């Protein structure tokens, strides 16, 4: 068996890519363009950087998220109990076309990533974007694009299971339409993380 190490080059200017960290989003030192490493090669990627709406003194990081746009079509669902709680809390059903947010950085502990993913997916916030990683650092992206779609579908199932009542039956279609990268601001506190949007949830 032979192992081949193929040097990666910038898609925009052709310069050899350099990095100190295993980041699937590779930035070119020469022209500054970002490209995505997937399936053994670099490819163009749609991405945006979100402006913080919360200001803190702690270090600011821009955390990569996969934003998966998908259609959720539920043909049949049966939930045992919990009807009153659902009515009182006015819990919305997760149906139709929506964006699913999947934290794509291993550096963020799962306990925060899980909460952020669900909060952002439920709230479907609108963000103001900025052209550069202002006053902060870009966090390393570790999740591949292919994985994001299935993670999005699991978020949908998690939501269905976590709403009041006990899920018993579910017949649905989950159709992924597109996926893009969004860098969301977050503050790294001594023992926790805080999102720099959504009022710091």
């Amino acid at each position, binding site marked *: *068996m*032979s*192992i*081949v*190490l*193929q*040097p*990666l080059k910038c898609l925009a200017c052709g310069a*050899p*890519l*350099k*990095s*100190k*960290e*295993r980041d*699937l989003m*590779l930035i070119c030192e020469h022209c500054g363009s970002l490209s995505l*490493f997937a399936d*053994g*090669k670099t490819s163009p990627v749609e991405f945006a950087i979100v402006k913080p709406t919360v200001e803190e003194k702690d270090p600011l990081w821009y955390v990569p998220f996969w934003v998966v746009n998908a259609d959720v079509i539920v043909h049949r669902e*049966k939930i*045992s*109990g919990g009807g009153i709680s659902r009515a009182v809390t006015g819990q919305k059903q997760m149906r139709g076309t929506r964006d699913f947010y999947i934290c794509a950085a291993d550096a963020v502990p*799962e306990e925060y990533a*899980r909460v952020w993913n669900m909060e952002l997916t439920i709230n479907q916030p609108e963000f103001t974007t900025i052209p550069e990683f202002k006053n902060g650092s870009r966090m390393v992206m570790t999740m591949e694009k292919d*994985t994001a779609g*299935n*993670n999005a*579908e*699991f978020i949908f*199932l*998690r939501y*269905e*299971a*976590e709403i009041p009542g*006990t*899920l*018993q*039956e*579910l017949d649905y279609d989950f159709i992924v339409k597109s996926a893009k990268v969004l860098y969301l601001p977050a503050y790294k506190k001594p023992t926790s993380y805080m999102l720099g949007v959504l009022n710091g949830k």
Partner: protein
Amino acid sequence: MSKTPKIIVSLTCPNCGGQVQSEEGESLVLCKFCDSVFSLTTDEGIGKIMYRLDVTREKAEARFLEWLKEGPKAKDLEKNAQISEAYPIYLPFWRLVGRGKACVCGVEIKKGDKDEPDRRIPHESLVNREYIYSDIACDPGDLGIAAIRIPDHAKAVEFDDESIVTFGVPESRDDAYSEGSAQIKLQAIKDGKRSMDEVYFSKAFFFEKAFSLVYYPFWIVRYTYEDRAYFAVLDGITSQVISGRAPGNAGSQSTAAALGGTLSGAVLAAFIFFGLALGAIEAIALFFAFGLIAAAGIIGFAYNRFRYGDEILEGAMKGKGLKRGRKQQCIETNYENTYDMFN
């Protein structure tokens, strides 16, 4: 097991000649000396990893002799067994590491009393765990090995098939991957099912972290005893006996049969005695029934010790014989960073 061991392979940077280290399953490789970034590909589409054989022949034979003394083996086995050959061999295993996530919904059925109907209690669960799948990638014949557990201190070295004795791998990479990911998804659903007697909905996902073909070292020790051939397979890193065949202890078998018969008779008699002492016909019948069950249990245990007593089968060996030791399961769970929900 606290965490999944990482397999690291060393390569040479084509840009600066520095040593580049790549972890299992990684296709993006960095050189820490010149910061160059590479895409790692293998000509067969799968990373092959080989482990260093740590156990010497002397250590393997010494451990083998210890093993001969363990369990209900023939009494004079250690004295009269003759090692005919001992040699190292590498066996290939598919190894798939990843996260299994599942949503499972269903009911638990609690049996009702005479007048009450069964109660159907709805349950739902979410499973989110890391699993490690391993499966032998060749036909190992009668060696009795199906899966491996790689110890934390195992040292991975660059794969070199010319320096080792091994078996061919007939199964394709894609088939092995499909089987492994399917097994992990099934395990996630099984873990989510827990107390559910009927499952109405289940869906599982697999998120790959690493997939490789692992060549793991073993020592095969073949020996004879009273003109019959036996063998043992030892782990080439831990020296633990993984599988093997050994002659049983005839004395232990006959003792088990005699003791089983005597004990079951005594237990039955004792239960009948207590029943008679209480007087009532229902009590006699009840104690007789308990006595019969206890006697049947003892006879069953003794029979199990006796019936295949002429051979001891270690590990995952198939066939007739008294089975001993632990069979390595194809799927292990890494419980670190587990996020389950059970309702």
